[in-house]
């Protein structure tokens, strides 16, 4: 009896183990084959495009998103009224166009009636009104700054929405049109407090691709939205877009070479571009920039409040060599906060601070700094510089700047940290020098308002500067209607900020994206690394190579 029971148990155990093993295999095989079918049957609408990214999605709520991977995925899910095309022009996306009424105090957007949410509800003017009002109510993201003068949002009819402004503001339509995501009112209105709404499951979108599933730290799978009106006829050829997380860019490059991914969402570091240029089946696409790399000084921290110190820091940054070596020439220098891509507004009379560490030291000594304790560092001039370690170019810049600063008697301690830590620190003001790269500024006025107003309406015044004179200059320019006068005022602010040395601009980078051209073609890239190859519009145009 006893023996029998034991034998029976043993048998059961063996059978159970066997079944488990079989199921395990079955599941694995099932998964494997689904994926490989997706990858190989590229000709059908089931084609899967795999994109490498260095970071996880930090935040799924498009109303407050700031990080890069977040933007890539959320911009594909939630349409905007306008998008930026290959030529950096704003063209219709969810809107068919816009017009100004009442001398510029009313901005009317006509919506594209073909847009539909993935649950079948049509996208209407109510959704636009809801999105704008939510952003204003909770002061979310940098869009809040662009909505400052909105007094009310009117739904004129199902496909027409009107923004009533307290005063005319010329860049309003383009700024809000491009930046403001449209969220489904019928879903988000149920969500309670939108400043804390996670939106991390059961996604409803109206863009080209909508999130379907995710495994944090590994992959994010998006499915094509069959109702996306800007896809070519017959729908997008790429049915599934999969973001795969590779925290290390070397691994990502190898994955691209091996064909584990089809596109690097992250730009190729300049140093690695040459080796990919000749690689089989891989092509590089160059796009311009809508932002720039910069050192921004937190004026609330110690000696950084001193203009002389900031000027001296600007003199230890060798932008010319940085562009020649670290960017391998793929970038252009800039002076002052206005990028040369806004040629009309860029104040070309400004002279860049010369690269002159010794001169910087003299300037500091003249300003009263001295090396009292004899450690080679001028007293009080030791700063921590934060940067995002996933940006290969900037981590290299950081080292060069640190070395040159030491010559001028300024000690810079580097804290190049993981991207989300970096973002958390910049948002919390926990830095002295912020070495980073702006993604997109679509017009100089919005840029200056977001980055320099004391009220910090966009949350990106990383100088944390509170300068009444600068506030007055910016607010005055924003109210200026006359074009010529407006340009003059922008240039004056450019000069003021340059003289204050609130930032040291580094370069305007040409981004290079690498993709498997033996598998996919037809990307419609937009400038900047925030948009690049991975906008919903661009991905919807992609076709597999037969």
């Amino acid at each position: 009896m006893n023996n029998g029971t034991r034998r029976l148990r043993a048998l059961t155990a063996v059978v159970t183990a066997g079944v488990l093993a079989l199921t395990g295999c079955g599941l694995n095989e099932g998964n494997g084959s689904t994926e490989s079918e997706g990858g190989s049957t590229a000709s059908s609408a089931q084609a899967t495009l795999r994109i490498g990214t260095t970071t996880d999605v930090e935040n799924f709520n498009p109303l407050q998103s700031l990080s890069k991977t977040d933007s890539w995925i959320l911009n594909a899910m939630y349409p905007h009224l306008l998008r930026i095309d290959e030529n950096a022009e704003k063209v219709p996306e969810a809107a068919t166009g816009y017009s100004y009424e009442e001398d510029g105090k009313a901005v009317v957007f006509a919506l594209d009636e073909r847009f539909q949410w993935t649950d079948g509800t049509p996208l209407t003017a109510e959704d636009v009104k809801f999105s704008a009002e939510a952003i204003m109510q909770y002061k979310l993201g940098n869009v809040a700054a662009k909505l400052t003068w909105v007094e009310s949002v009117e739904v004129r009819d199902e496909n027409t929405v009107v923004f009533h402004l307290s005063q005319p503001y010329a860049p309003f339509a383009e700024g809000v049109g491009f930046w403001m995501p449209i969220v489904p009112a019928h879903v988000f209105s149920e969500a309670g407090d939108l400043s804390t709404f996670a939106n991390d499951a059961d996604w409803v979108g109206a863009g080209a691709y909508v999130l379907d599933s995710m495994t944090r730290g590994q992959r994010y799978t998006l499915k094509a939205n069959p109702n996306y009106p800007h896809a070519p006829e017959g729908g997008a050829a790429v049915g599934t877009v999969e973001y795969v997380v590779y925290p290390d860019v070397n691994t990502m490059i190898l994955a691209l070479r091996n064909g584990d991914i089809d596109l690097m969402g992250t730009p190729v570091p300049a140093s690695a571009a040459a080796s990919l240029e000749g690689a089989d089946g891989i092509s590089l696409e160059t796009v311009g920039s809508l932002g720039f790399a910069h050192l921004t000084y937190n004026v609330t921290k110690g000696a950084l409040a001193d203009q002389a110190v900031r000027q001296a820091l600007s003199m230890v940054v060798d932008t010319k060599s940085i562009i020649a070596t670290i960017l391998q020439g793929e970038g252009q220098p800039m002076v002052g906060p206005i990028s040369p891509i806004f040629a009309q507004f860029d104040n070309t009379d400004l002279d860049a601070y010369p690269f002159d560490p010794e001169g910087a030291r003299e300037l500091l000594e003249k300003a009263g700094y001295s090396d009292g304790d004899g450690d080679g560092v001028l007293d009080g001039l030791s700063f921590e510089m934060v940067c995002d370690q996933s940006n290969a170019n900037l981590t290299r810049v950081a080292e060069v700047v640190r070395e040159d600063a030491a010559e001028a008697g300024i000690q810079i301690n580097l804290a190049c940290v993981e991207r989300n830590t970096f973002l958390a620190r910049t948002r919390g003001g926990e830095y002295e020098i912020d070495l980073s790269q702006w993604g997109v500024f679509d017009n100089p006025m919005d840029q200056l308002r977001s980055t320099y107003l004391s009220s910090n309406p966009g949350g990106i015044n990383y100088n944390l500067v509170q300068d009444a004179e600068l506030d007055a200059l910016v607010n005055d320019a924003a109210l200026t209607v006359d074009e010529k006068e407006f340009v003059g005022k922008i240039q004056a602010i450019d000069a003021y900020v340059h003289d204050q040395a609130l930032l040291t601009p580094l370069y305007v980078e040409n981004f290079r994206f690498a993709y498997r051209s033996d598998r996919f073609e037809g990307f419609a890239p937009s400038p900047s690394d925030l948009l690049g190859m991975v906008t919903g519009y661009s991905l919807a145009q992609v076709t597999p190579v037969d």
Partner: protein
Amino acid sequence: MSSTSTAPAPDVPLAALAATSLSPKRPGGFFSKPSGWLSVAVLVVFVLTGVFGPMLMERPGGLGTDILQAPSGAHWFGTDDLGQDVFTQVVWGTRISLTVGVVASLIAIVIGTALGLGAAYLKWLDPFVTTITDVMLSLPLLPLMILVTALAGPSVTTLVVVIGVLSWPEVTRLIRSNGMVVAAMPYIDGARVLGAGAVRIITREILPAVMPLIVVSVLLTAARSVISEAGLSFLGMGDPSSWSWGRILLNAQRSGTIATAWWQTLFPSLAILLLVLASTIAGVRYNDSRDPRTKGM
């Protein structure tokens, strides 16, 4: 030979210990085998490089024009993505890597020996030391080092202290088990009867007996410290203002060229390998040369 037969832990290299009670000059000494003089020669080359190299070569820095050049006559180890000479970086890195290795190892040896000898002789101290050592040995060292370095802020001093303070448990265990053998010997009882105190017995009687083991430990711990330093620097926890081999590896990784510019990673890795191998072999050879068993006695 009698001491080996009473050893509580037969896997512990007791030979060095046994040798002290015997005559030190015998055939089969340290340099009688190639592994002895070769390893010492390599170590001497590294020390000379670390001391004099940076005096002869300009500190690597700045931005060069020859970017990512493969090894050639002009650049023996090639250049990195900033156009800096990798050979110069490796030479400069030798100094920091050696310094961290040696100083951290000394810290570990001092703490480890003090605790080990204390535990070996003082019975009341033994349970505490053993418990702490076991706890330390069971901790995941690398994550702990990363955490502490991140909190303390990266610098050479932090690295040295963190690595040194976290590396003593192996030394303690080794010294304790051998110290216990010595402590049980009749001449220790003799010393006690003559009125010697605990401090005197530990420092004058037991310490000299385990000294050869300490020499071996210094070498092995230094080897491990060099690896720890390289690992921490590679993870971005090193001192960004001084060159070390780990930092060269980190730079290669950050530039995104690991897959193509092999020389950026190969040469610092070779340096680490050579130094660690040489000091390990030297340690083993030193132990063997004093071991009556391996000398065929």
